[in-house]
């Protein structure tokens, strides 16, 4: 079996200590929570670490609690399954439960954390390979090489965002708290990302993601969220395209606010702004949703760096966006294969 390379392992019990360690160690320092992303990456040597700092011993960093304003506060080291199964999440943010239920497999959702999933490394079939395999292509830009094999003439890396919770939390207008020795700051989640396969996180290297804040929803009937995920199998697989949607409706069923984010089609959760603009102030009809889906679909730029044929993924992305919108509004999603949907079950 492939094994972990040697590194120093530190397990602080206090957030300030952790921040100090992170600031004090060199650039080859990595944070780990559940380890479901970092350990395989280290084994395959496409990520390196001289020191690994575990956040799992830090008191108070895990847990889900309601805030005074009616929102939710989720600690970064809360296991994914704990978040998805939380009754308030299931009732008021069903799209989030959906998105999390679609991540990998049950054992990995028990180990993996919500913070880890938000920071999960971008993926690419030229990158998520062993050291020997990557030697045989003379490496790639994201790790030890010079060329992005997905688009060899491109100056940038096209590894795609692999988080399922990120597009959904972005669509739910979540905010995150980042802590370093320099203090803490709270930013809207989308500001934590940028469109680059290598430097996909906009947070500073010495910052630790500690908390996710979900805003209050008046009630589930007015805040509608949904998540659909395209992948080969009904479990385990990363998304090759996902769509997260939240619609806030007024008392007349008119769209007050909306958010559509696409996952796995770019190096960051990609907002579909034009599509959202088209929705605002409208009472959604099936025809309108078709138009909105098409507008959003154009934002998807799948590359040949994951499963399924890229053109086909682009062609069917609209179907998934449409399904998510329709489902959020209580209509039949009209898409076969609910197993591709988050946490779905086979029809038979």
């Amino acid at each position, binding site marked *: 079996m492939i094994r972990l390379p040697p590194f120093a392992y530190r397990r602080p019990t206090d957030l300030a200590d952790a921040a100090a360690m992170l600031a004090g160690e060199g650039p080859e320092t990595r944070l780990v929570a559940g380890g479901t992303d970092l350990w395989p990456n280290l084994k395959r040597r496409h990520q390196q670490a001289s020191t690994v700092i575990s956040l799992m011993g830090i008191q108070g960093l895990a847990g889900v609690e309601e805030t005074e304003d009616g929102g939710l506060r989720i600690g970064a080291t809360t296991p994914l399954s704990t978040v998805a199964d939380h009754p308030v999440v299931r009732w008021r943010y069903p799209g989030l439960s959906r998105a999390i239920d679609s991540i990998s497999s049950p054992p990995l959702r028990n180990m993996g954390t919500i913070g880890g999933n938000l920071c999960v490394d971008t993926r690419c079939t030229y990158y998520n390979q062993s050291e020997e395999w990557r030697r045989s292509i003379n490496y790639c830009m994201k790790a030890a090489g010079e060329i992005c094999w997905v688009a060899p003439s491109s100056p940038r890396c096209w590894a795609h965002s692999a988080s399922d919770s990120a597009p959904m939390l972005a669509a739910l207008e979540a905010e995150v708290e980042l802590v370093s020795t320099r203090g803490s700051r709270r930013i809207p989640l989308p500001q934590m990302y940028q469109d680059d396969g290598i430097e996909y996180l906009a947070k500073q290297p010495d910052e630790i993601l500690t908390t996710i804040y979900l805003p209050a929803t008046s009630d589930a009937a007015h805040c509608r969220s949904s998540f659909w995920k395209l992948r080969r199998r009904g479990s385990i*697989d990363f998304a090759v395209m996902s769509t997260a949607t939240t619609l806030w409706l007024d008392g007349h069923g008119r769209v007050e606010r909306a958010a559509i984010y696409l996952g796995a089609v770019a190096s960051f959760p990609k907002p579909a702004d034009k599509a959202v603009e088209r929705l605002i102030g409208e009472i959604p009809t099936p025809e309108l949703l078709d138009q909105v889906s098409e507008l959003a679909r154009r934002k998807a730029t799948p590359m040949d760096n994951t499963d399924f044929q890229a053109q*086909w993924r682009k062609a069917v992305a609209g179907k998934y966006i449409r399904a998510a919108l329709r489902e959020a509004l209580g209509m039949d999603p009209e898409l076969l294969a609910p197993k591709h949907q988050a946490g779905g079950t086979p029809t038979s």
Partner: protein
Amino acid sequence: MKPPSEAVAAKPQGERDFRLIGTPFRRVDARAKVTGQTRYADDLSFPRMVHMRLVRSTVPHARIRQIDFSRAEKVPGFLGKLTGEALPETFGILPVSQDEHALCPDVVRFVGDPVAAVVAVTEDQAIEAALAVEVEYEPLTTVASIEEALSTPEPRIHDYGVEGNLHKVVSMEFGDVEPGFEEAEVILEDTFLYEGNTHLPMEQHSSVAVPEDEGRLTLYSSTQTPHYCHRALAKVLGLPASRIRVVGTPNGGGFGGKSDPFNHEIVAARMALDLGRPVKVTLTREEVFYCHRGRHPVLMALRTGFTKDGAITAQHLKTALDGGAYGSYGVASTYYTGALQTVTYDLPRYRFDGVRCFTNKPPCGPKRGHGTPQPRFGFEIQLDKAAHQLGIDPADIRLKHLAAPHTITANWLKVETIGLRQCIEKVVEGSGWRERYGKLPRGRGLGLACGSYLCGAGLPIYWNHMPQSGVMLKLDRSGGVAVFCGESEIGQGSDSVLAAIVAEVLGVDLLDIRLCVADTDLTPVDLGSYSSRVTLMMGNAALQAAQRARDLIASAVSKKLEIPASRLVFAENRVFDAADPEQGVTFQEASIIAEALHGTLATTGSYIPPRSPGRYRGAGVGPSPTYSYSASVVEVEVDPDTGLYEVHHVWMAHDIGRSINPALVMGQVEGGVYMGLGEVLMEEQAFRRLPKRLSDSLVHKMPSLLEYKSPTFHDMPPVTTYLVEDPDALGPFGAKEVGQGPLLPIMPAVANAIFDAVGVRVDQTPIHPHMILEALAAQANEEEGRYGPTAFPEVDFGETLLVPTPEQGGDGRAINSWKEQLRSGMRSSTGTMTTRDEALSNKKGALTT
């Protein structure tokens, strides 16, 4: 939740009752496996054991210029290294393809080809040392596909074979096909592509080599074929086979992927002898993808003539196989892509042309169904097309033209019982085919297909007249029965079949049987777990050994109790008088009586398959004592907007002859269905070629369990299994095979069901949703609603062997030039084994023991 599979099995009338045979019983290794007590190769540990890792090529085709160990030698724990010069002797599973080196001495032929080995105290250190080895290469042109192999004669990947990068060509005609095509009222011509895929066993290959006293050696290995591994070790190490012991450990799945002798086995053995310490090597998952020996990608052109009622007048099949970098079983695979077309339906005239190419990819070989799923995919789809065109129900076009049992086919295969009619009837009834086929709403469809497979290859891999399976029994005063056999348990349940057959004959409990298997020092030779041979061949050998033991005991008990031996019954751990069951002794007492009378009690049994009637060159591939048959109906739902589809249900009927253990048989049926679904829905051994101007590289696209897509539990539909039991005189208690046959109908049945659902054809595997969408778009454009290859390349298949069929009064021999090259009465060279002449002249690869 999915309902459990149901077995519908009826005991044939007028049969004797069995105590154990035919009743579901818990497999003998079940408890150990589910409680973690089974010791797989990687679980083994020995005092002073050290760890080995192979350094594999990172380039697809190159000369090795230099190997630098200087950094590796500095890794703490480094103990030893090895390069190709140390093991110059070649090996390979087939005597005609001795083209592998334990470590490449001069040329590497694919990314993953082993060039060196390092040993260190711990596995981590071995990994670090292997990564630190630096190899300098001088690149050679990369050959990536069948087309490139045909158009790139130089550089040759190997300096043997037909010419250029063609490894093998075959051309044979049974009866004149042209008059057959002239008689035909409809002729269908199709091209099909079956993509390669791999076995994906749960257990990665693992071996431990242990040096013994006086230069002897034991190798523990997860191999399906300890005997062939034994031969390869003797050859490459240059040691007498008698000083090497190979112990086959229980395999965590094989499916054909552990049937070759492998580099890591030989190198670990050499290292253990050099270092005087036990050496373990366990492959990573990525390395298992490089060992491969999986399904060959096959491009096919299939031309078949039909009468208006669907009878086949003639068929011409052309196949082109992408063999990868080494021979492996490839010559046999090439023949197998043509051999079994004749055993399911009446096929009076048949021509087969095949070619296998070398390419710079991991070598292909035998995977469940070995060479036959690819042409079966084409044949069963083409039958569906013919039925559609002729207005005949796809079930009827098959039922009306089934091959006749106990006959000889056009290509000289002797078929015995054929349960295909009952199989088709079962799945047609179970699926509601007559009411539902062609009548479901758009997007829903049913597809039907059949298949057949060997119950063991008729010939061994190397020329010999010895048994293909041997079983030895030792009985004594303890009342226990020790059973010795070279067979390998690879998860299929062969240990349970062996124990059950002996237990049935001797009337003892399974717990009173002690098995010793897959040990070349201790057990009689069995050729291994491949070609679905074990139940039939080992079973017959076990039956003979057990009957001999029974006779031995019966004669002693008869004398002692003064009861005629013919009246003695062996059951319930007793030996008693059938006329007066009270009169008798326990089995232990009977053993004591027999041991006292006869002395030490031991018996043997052995099995050699009947001789096949074919006498032409190539007739050695295809014969089997008998054949199993399967039929399946698959129901799918297809979304015409996206091309996404799901399999909702599978009905599978299998002609098992007789179930030794119906629970095991159903497990194999469901496993075959599962694997077949993987091949048609998603699995592909795909490669990436980087832009040629930037790189010569050719890499496996996704050598990991996550990215090589294979179905999970979640993707598995309910399966309804029907076991058709019509005991075959050639099988033990009438049993036939089940390990491979039930896979065959699945892939074409899914393709046919997609056609029923949305009216388009996908003539290749795996069927990706974009293919359905493109076929639908073509159809909407008033073009042919089809996705698949459109042409078969120009290939010179050489002189066609002309073999008159039995119906034409042939004698099984060819009538043109080949005949003169072969001496009368001699089994012809099939390419899979040496001829008698070669064996006697003691050439390389012939008999070594």
